[in-house]
Each structure stands twice: as structure tokens, then as C-alpha cells.
């Protein structure tokens, strides 16, 4: 049997960071990822932060992947502005919360994980190969066994191999956690559910519409009636030539008031502020009723081709350096590109009856559970010689508008790497030596503190930012609370008291329908401006969204339902983001082919990731 020092299970940002760091510590490690390529299984919102904290060291992305991260990595935009929009019907009240975004922040970039993680992988494997390690994709770890002091890793694809330690970075639906019973499955109280669509929009239109300089971006959070009465809210982040539009809701709140996830996104799209943000001029094929069926199809084919050329040229025209159209010699100047686009447009309109209408273009629909660190962080993030990091360890910062998981996973990865490296040097992988040390390092992380205690500085800043909003007209109860909080001395005492009570007791107050739905709606109603949209977006049906996704179907299902008649599984008929469940007689039946591996059904099923290379293949993530 082959032997290795370290196996890292999972090639998301946490696992890749561990591989990079361990290799830079001159240790050899192999990383096993189930997806056919790195990045195809990972989803985020997402803003990747680099943070600082006076209370302790944070290991940031640039510490792991190099100071040239900003100039070399495929990041989307540097987030400069951060807004919260309270919504009620067509009334919107906007607050500028940029100081919250800047709080303890070195930088925050919008990212797409299917671009970023492959770049992490390239850097990590370069370092790993020097140490005799590397990345293996398309392999699914199915079991781990401890036999006579040996740790044996079993996969669906390769011969078993032996390791001295394991870093489990296999995400929120960690099978390693289940195999080792290091923690129980997360329950709906402990997690949030995220659903997202990627929307295409030309680079320069994004900059013009959001008032951005080139390479800069903004983040927009939404709360109020767009939540359909759930605890959570929407987000819209600008990428280079796409927008990430999504929503995150407390799973419990979805269970008590079930709604189809796609509808949560649709609700955002229908909001006039959002529909204006995502608007583009989209060609739609006209009818040619006077032609025979056969000729109609022929025309449709050539129109499709022409529209494709039109779109390609237009997106390039609206991007930096005109997408290289002039450099490559295809065109002499910008005017020439413009007139070519115009002439295709004219052809399409006059010859083929194509209409150019206001609409929006969706590229990818995705969904995933997110750990709410303050509720589900693993108290003891190890078992034997296995260390848990990132989502697998339930580590993430989820407070108000703040969702941070990528940066937390990177920080965890460095700590795990240092602990494992120390064990390799001493050849001691006992949990007393390895696990305890890792635990102490994790406890030193400022992120851990933020998962256990309220960050008073952050909350104070929030209160400062909203202190001038005249709540009196909005909500008398909140006004009283706020007035008290504005008093510095009272605020300090109150925060201390809150921290003594602990998150568990005060969460029902902070994370309530009142805070996420009612108050924002009242604010919008009383103080908001009316926003109107110039069109009605044509929202694709779920079947169209699924049809755009890429899968490599497995013939065998990776999920088995525990109790086909349970109330929980009945709710999944509505809650599964791709409608994999349906009722047949009295039984809830699964059709696994459309599964996007979000994990929402995992608590009521025997849930495994699909075998190597199988399942969903996201293109943006």
C-alpha cells in the first residue's frame, strides 16, 4: 500500500490553501478533489476579504498565495462601496454601509470560485510538486479506516493508501465528519441556505451603471419584502462582466415558511431597483409566420448565428481595450466595431424581424448551504489525526450583512498546516499532540472569537452609521432601543451584557423576521424613494435554468432518503432548489439527476457527494 504524510480531502479554497501552505513549509501533501476539475463544485457569493485585527494574527490570502495576489489572481473587482437597500414594494431606502465593509479590512474583492480556485490550484500544485505532492482530481474519498495504528484512505477510484494525518476540507456536507463522527450533521438551526444566479452584463455598462472606475466594484445588500418574510436577505455584487445576484436565508425560517428557492431569486429580480441594475438590451427572435415550417427553422438557424456574432462583438466592444478586437487587427478603431455592430443589428431587425428589448441575461443558477459559525462552529475541530477546516468545521462568520467563509477557511488552513508540519517533524500524530495544538491555534484566531462573541466594534460602527436615520417615523420600539444604544456608556454596558448572555440567547432577537423584514419595510415605506422599472424582466423557468447547467450524471444516486414519508422530506419537495423530489403516492421520491449538491436534504438522507467526476459542474461558482 502506498504511503503519504498528509492527505487533504477537498479542493475548495480551504483545502487548496492548506496544500499551498504545507508545501511552503517543505512538507509533502496530496489533495484529493471529487470534481473533474478544481472549481467546478464550489459556490460563494462572494467577496473574498483580507482582514486585520488588533487582537491577533490573521492569515490572509496574500500571505498564502503571494503578495502579487492582487495583480496576478483572476479576481473580479475591488469592492469600494457597500450599500444596504431596505425594500417595500417599489419603495427603496438606501443606506451607505461602506465603513462596515472597511472595518478591519485590508481589501475585499468580488470573486467567482470557478476562476479563483483553479488559480489557487495552479500555485498550490507548483509548490506541492516540489515536495513530491500534488492535486488529484476526479477522486472521491469514500471511507477512512484506522487499522492497527494505520490510517487508510479509501476512494471510489484509486487503490487504498495510507497516511499519517488528514486535513478535512470537504465542505459543509463533510463526509469525513460523518465517517469519523467528529460532529453530527448540521441541523437547520445551524445553517443558512444560499441561492444565486450569475447575470451577464457588459463590462463598461456595469461601470457606468454602478458609477465605478475600471476594476472597482460595489456590493448591494437587500432586506425587506424581497425576503418573502424570511430571516436573511439578498445580495448583488459586481464582477468584471457579470453580476452575482443571490439570497441567503436561515434554513429554519425556510422550513417554517417553505418557498421554492428559485422564487427567492425571482423576487429579487422583480424588485425595480434590481431589475434596473441587471437590465440589458437583449435580441429576441421575431416570428416568420408566412414561411413554411422548414424555412422557418432554416431562418431561425441563421438568425441564431447572427445573434451570436452580434453578442460576441457587443460584449467585446463594451469591455476593456475592446476585448482585443483592435489589437488582433480585426478592426482598425472603435468606430469600425460600432458600425459593424449597428449593421448586424439593422440586418437582424429589418431582414429577420428580430426585436431588441429590455431584459436580462442569466448564465448560471446555483445553490448551497452555508455554515453559520456562531451556531455550528466545531468546538473540537479534530478527531484522531484528522483536522477539520473551513466549511467542513462549520466555520464561517455570519453576522447581519456579513458573510465570510473563504477568508476564514484560508486562515484555518494555515493553522492546520502549521500543526501538521510540527507533527511531521516530531513524527507524532497523536491527537493529544496534533489535535490539541491545532485546537489552541484555532482558538487564537480572531475569527474564532467573532464566532463566539459579538464584535463590539462592528456593532458600534453599525449603530453610528444608522444613528441619523429618523427611526421615530419608522418604528417606535426600535427608536427607543436605538436612542439607548446611541448613548456610549449605555451601549458599552448593553454589549457587555449581550456578550455575557451569549449569542445563543440573543440571536432570536437579532436574527428575527422583525429585524430582516418588518423594520426594513417600515424604513422603506416611511423614508424610501419610489423606484420604477422601465420593463418587466422575463424570468426563466426552473427547467430552463437547470437545462443551462452542466452535469456528468451518475447512473447510481448519491443520496438515499431515510424516511420517505417524513414531514421533513415532504418539505423538500418545495425546498430542493432543482426540484429533485416529488410525491409518488405517499412516498417522497428522489430523482438525483438534477441535483446541484447543495446539501439541503442531507439531514433527512444518507448523503454522499457523487463519485469522482460525477454530478454538477459549475462554470462560475
Amino acid at each position, binding site marked *: 500500500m502506498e504511503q*503519504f504524510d498528509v492527505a487533504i480531502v477537498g479542493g475548495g479554497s480551504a483545502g487548496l490553501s492548506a496544500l499551498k501552505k504545507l508545501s511552503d513549509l517543505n512538507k509533502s501533501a496530496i489533495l484529493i478533489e471529487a470534481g473533474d476539475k478544481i472549481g467546478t463544485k464550489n459556490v460563494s457569493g462572494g467577496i473574498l476579504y483580507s482582514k486585520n485585527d488588533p487582537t491577533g494574527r490573521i492569515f490572509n490570502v496574500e500571505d498564502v498565495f503571494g503578495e502579487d495576489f492582487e495583480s496576478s489572481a483572476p479576481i473580479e473587482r475591488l469592492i469600494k462601496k457597500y450599500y444596504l437597500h431596505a425594500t417595500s414594494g417599489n419603495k427603496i431606502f438606501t443606506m451607505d454601509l461602506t465603513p462596515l465593509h472597511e472595518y478591519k479590512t485590508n481589501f475585499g474583492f468580488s470573486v467567482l470560485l470557478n476562476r479563483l480556485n483553479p488559480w489557487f490550484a495552479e500555485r498550490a500544485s507548483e509548490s506541492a510538486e516540489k515536495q513530491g505532492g500534488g492535486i488529484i482530481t476526479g477522486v472521491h474519498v469514500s471511507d477512512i479506516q484506522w487499522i492497527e495504528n494505520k490510517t487508510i484512505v479509501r476512494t471510489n477510484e*484509486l487503490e487504498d*493508501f495510507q497516511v499519517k494525518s488528514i486535513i478535512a476540507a470537504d465542505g459543509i456536507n463533510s463526509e469525513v465528519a460523518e465517517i469519523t463522527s467528529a460532529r453530527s450533521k448540521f441541523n437547520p438551526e445551524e445553517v443558512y441556505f444560499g441561492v444565486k444566479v450569475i447575470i451577464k452584463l457588459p463590462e463598461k455598462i456595469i461601470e457606468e451603471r454602478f458609477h465605478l472606475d475600471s476594476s472597482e466594484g460595489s456590493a448591494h445588500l437587500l432586506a425587506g419584502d424581497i425576503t418573502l418574510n424570511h430571516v436573511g436577505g439578498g445580495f448583488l455584487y459586481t464582477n468584471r462582466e457579470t453580476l452575482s445576484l443571490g439570497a441567503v436565508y436561515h434554513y429554519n425560517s425556510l422550513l417554517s415558511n417553505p418557498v421554492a428557492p428559485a422564487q427567492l431569486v425571482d423576487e429579487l429580480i422583480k424588485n425595480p431597483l434590481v431589475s434596473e441594475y441587471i437590465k440589458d438590451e437583449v435580441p429576441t427572435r421575431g416570428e416568420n409566420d408566412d414561411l413554411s415550417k422548414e424555412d*422557418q*427553422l432554416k431562418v431561425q438557424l441563421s438568425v441564431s448565428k447572427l445573434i451570436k456574432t452580434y453578442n460576441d462583438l457587443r460584449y467585446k466592444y463594451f469591455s476593456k481595450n475592446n476585448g482585443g478586437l483592435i489589437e488582433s487587427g480585426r478592426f482598425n478603431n472603435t468606430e469600425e466595431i460600432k458600425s459593424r455592430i449597428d449593421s448586424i443589428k439593422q440586418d437582424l431587425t429589418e431582414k429577420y424581424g428580430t426585436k431588441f428589448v429590455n431584459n436580462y441575461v442569466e448564465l448560471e443558477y446555483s445553490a448551497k448551504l452555508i455554515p453559520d459559525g456562531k451556531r455550528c462552529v466545531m468546538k473540537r475541530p479534530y478527531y484522531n489525526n484528522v483536522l477539520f477546516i473551513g466549511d467542513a468545521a462549520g466555520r464561517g462568520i455570519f453576522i447581519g450583512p456579513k458573510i465570510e467563509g473563504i477568508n476564514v477557511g484560508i486562515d484555518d488552513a494555515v493553522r492546520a498546516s502549521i500543526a501538521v508540519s510540527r507533527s511531521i517533524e516530531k513524527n507524532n500524530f497523536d491527537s493529544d499532540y496534533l489535535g490539541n495544538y491545532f485546537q489552541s491555534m484555532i482558538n487564537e484566531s480572531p475569527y474564532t472569537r467573532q464566532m463566539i462573541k459579538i464584535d463590539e466594534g462592528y456593532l458600534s460602527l453599525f449603530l453610528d452609521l444608522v444613528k441619523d436615520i429618523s427611526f421615530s417615523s419608522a418604528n417606535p420600539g426600535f427608536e427607543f432601543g436605538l436612542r439607548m444604544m446611541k448613548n456610549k456608556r449605555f451601549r458599552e454596558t448593553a454589549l457587555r451584557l449581550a456578550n455575557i448572555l451569549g449569542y445563543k440567547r440573543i440571536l432570536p432577537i437579532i436574527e428575527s423576521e422583525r429585524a430582516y423584514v418588518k423594520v426594513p419595510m417600515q424604513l422603506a415605506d416611511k423614508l424610501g424613494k419610489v423606484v420604477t422599472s422601465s420593463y418587466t424582466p422575463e424570468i426563466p423557468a426552473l427547467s430552463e435554468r437547470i437545462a443551462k447547467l452542466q452535469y456528468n450524471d451518475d447512473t447510481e444516486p448519491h443520496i438515499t432518503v431515510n424516511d420517505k414519508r417524513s414531514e421533513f422530506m415532504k418539505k423538500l419537495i418545495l425546498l430542493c432548489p432543482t426540484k429533485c423530489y416529488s410525491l409518488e403516492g405517499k412516498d417522497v421520491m428522489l430523482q438525483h439527476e438534477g441535483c446541484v449538491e447543495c446539501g439541503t436534504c442531507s439531514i433527512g438522507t444518507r448523503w454522499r457527494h457523487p463519485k469522482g467526476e460525477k454530478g454538477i459542474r459549475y462554470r462560475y461558482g
Partner: protein
Amino acid sequence: MLNVGVIIKLEPDFSEGNVSYNSDGTLNRAETKNILGPHSAIACNAAFYCKVKYGARISIGTMGPPIAESALKQAQVLTDAEELNLYSDRLFAGADTLATAEVLKNGVEKMFGADKMDIVFSGHRASDGETGQTGPQTAWKLGYTFLGNVMDFDIDLDRKVIVAKRLISLQGMDTIIEEIECPLPVFITIDPSYKSAFSTVSQRLGANKYSKQGRKKSENYAQFLKTYDSQKLDLDPKLVGLPGSPTIVYRVERIPRAKTNRKTAIIDPSNPDNLTPVVTKIIEIARGK
């Protein structure tokens, strides 16, 4: 050290959008893109497997015009080959399979500075009108054991023997898998069903390392390229090109279109109602009506 040779071929790319035909229905070779033939690519995969599993070094050879270099480059991406050989001479023009085999035999004998090769792979056949005889004829000329349709193999380096699984068709009646053990050297034509099975972590890491290396090497493939004309290959002009080709192509017949009495109806799938008659028809056929 295991020495592995691969014989490859630059072929027209028959995939959609890349192939062009003359008005008489024959292939327009000037307009059609050329790529490393799909069967050659599978032979490359088999050689690459030998590199990863047995640490083999790889030499690739092809007979063709100077543009065949591009096939050698693509093969280097797939194999991380140490050596690329182009056998190119005007004298080779008009060669049939026998004359081609003569060139390839001398080519193989010159690989790695005339070191003896242990295995030579070639594709099952070419996709542009070849008859699958080049491989066996080259093997015969080289005096190597020939193994056709190999779909899987294992090598015992100490004993210098290969155990190969071959697909055999019994006069079209049935297909069986034959397992055969024989001493090296061998000449193998690889079956299209072959897939490299890297089954251990080390093999997967090795495969990653060598394919990265191969991609990098191929950027400077000219450094690895050796070009041979008939003189350098010590060939007898009577045995190559047209003079060395006993095959006479008497006439090329176009395959006549089969007569059918099918009727085509185009259905617009955007209206689901249109699908009902289709489904009804399928059910009727399935019920044998």
C-alpha cells in the same frame, strides 16, 4: 529503461466545421484542418501510461510532409516524449501501406540513436482511407511480435514480458477477450476502447507531472525534433514511394446513396403540443403496429 516508440499520423479533422469537401464529394485537403489522428492519440495515451507506470522514455515518429510536425507537437503534449521524428521526403509521395511500412521500419530502427525499442505503438487505423495494414506490415518488417487490438496491458520489467488483453472478433459472430503473454519487443496496435487506468495516487501524481512537462516541452518542440529524408534513413528508393507500392488503386467508387422511403417532418419543439403525435407514433412502433 523501457524504450517506447509511437507511430502516429496527421489526419484531416473530420469533426463538424473543420472538414471541407470538393464539389465532386472528395476531400478538399487544402481547406480541411489537420490534427493528430484520433487513433494515433490513443496510441500516445498507451505510451504515456508506460511512462507513468514504468518510467519509459518515448520516441514518436511520423511519415508525412513538413506540416506533420504539428502532429508530433500534439503527440508530445500527450506523451511528454523525449524525441520527435519526422520522416519526410518527396520520394515518399504516393506510398501505399507497404512502402510506408518500409519507411517506418527504418525510422523505428533509428529511434534513440538506434537503441533497441521494447514496444512500438500505433493506432488501430487511420481515419482518412487507410486500411489498418501499416502497423502489422511495419511489425513484420521489424521482426517484432505483432499484437493487434490491444485494449489493456501490463509489463513485467524484470522478465521483459508483456501481458496484453486483445479484443478478438470471431468472424463477426462474437467478441472475446484474449489474454496473451509474450516477450518484448512487441509492436502493438491499440484498440479504440483503450483507456489508461491510473489506479494509484503515485500514478495520478506522475500523470499530472508528466502531462504538465509535456505541455511545456511542446512549446519548444523543435528542440526535440529530428528530420530524416530517405538518405538519412538508409532507404532503398525502389522500396519507397510510388515505386515501392504494389497496390494499384484502379478506381474510387462513391458509395451510392441507399434508397429509402423515409418521410421527414420537421417538428418545432417550442410548442409541446407538437410532440404528442411523435410520442403516439413511437408508442405505436414500440407496440409493433
